[in-house]
């Protein structure tokens, strides 16, 4: 394991990933990750809008893990978040376990967003913001729409079935 650590780090770099966290995600951690990333991107002369969009995507993803990950230890929610840079764009990867019976609903929601263009997403966001949050939602139910809206490309996602109970949900947002 010890000698593999460098290989692991090199593999992340090869994929453009400059930040990665796998494990329990908490609100305090989100704030610290956010400000460290902000600092890093400012050093790279990234525009204010881009810094805020990456920051925002990390926060929405992390809070999704905190609210919806089905891998939990007591009150802590587990997941993985990675931030990288490729082809002149920052990207954010996010993954967590979900129960199999939630997969279809989530898939439907995300496919719907994939089919929308910028203006449709903007309208949909405003429309949903006026509505009371969906019953299963612990936030405002706007997180995915917000990410799709801020992305420069269509959001990508995948579900990998792990066993009878769980699938691993992963998502990529390119800013």
């Amino acid at each position, binding site marked *: 394991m010890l000698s593999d650590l460098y290989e692991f780090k090199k593999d992340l770099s090869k994929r453009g990933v400059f930040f990665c966290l796998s494990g329990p995600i908490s609100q305090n951690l989100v704030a610290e990750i956010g400000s460290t990333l902000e600092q890093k991107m400012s050093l790279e002369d990234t525009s204010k*809008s881009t810094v805020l969009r990456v920051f925002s995507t990390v926060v929405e993803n992390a809070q999704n893990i905190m609210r919806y990950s089905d891998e939990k230890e007591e009150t802590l929610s587990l997941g993985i978040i990675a931030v990288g840079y490729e082809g002149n764009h920052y990207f954010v990867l996010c993954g967590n376990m979900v129960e199999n019976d939630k997969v279809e609903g989530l898939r439907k929601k995300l496919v719907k967003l994939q089919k929308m263009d910028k203006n449709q997403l903007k309208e949909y966001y405003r429309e949903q*913001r006026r509505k009371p949050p969906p019953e299963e939602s612990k936030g405002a139910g706007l997180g995915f729409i917000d990410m799709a809206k801020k992305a420069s490309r269509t959001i990508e996602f995948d579900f990998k079935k792990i066993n009878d109970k769980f699938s691993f949900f992963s998502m990529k947002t390119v800013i």
Partner: protein
Amino acid sequence: MNNLIIEATKYTPEIVFDREKSLLEIRGKSYPENTSIFYAPVFEWLEEYFENAGDEKITVNMELIYFNSSSSKILMDFCDVLDAAASDGKNIMVNWIYEEDDEDGLEFGEEFQEDLESVTFNLVQKSIG
């Protein structure tokens, strides 16, 4: 009635609602884990404030560097409360303050501006440095 003062944290904004000055200010970042719990005292304070307010000019400064999607919904509710008070005869001016090159901040301000009917809603660009 007391002023409402909430100090900023890493993920919640500073809130200074000054009754004497008729000046309500929200400043900073907003992405608490539970938005409704954080903003509950804000809405309680507003309700009592508008019950007692007369026709004085009320200024609301909203200077949010960043807010998450659930805060966005709460901020809209907040603006709706102001709009309702304005249509009820209160004299309210809202300044939506955004940084020079923050496109999304401006866009959110424009959307709020479009949605509100009775308050005076200004978009104020803050230059950096």
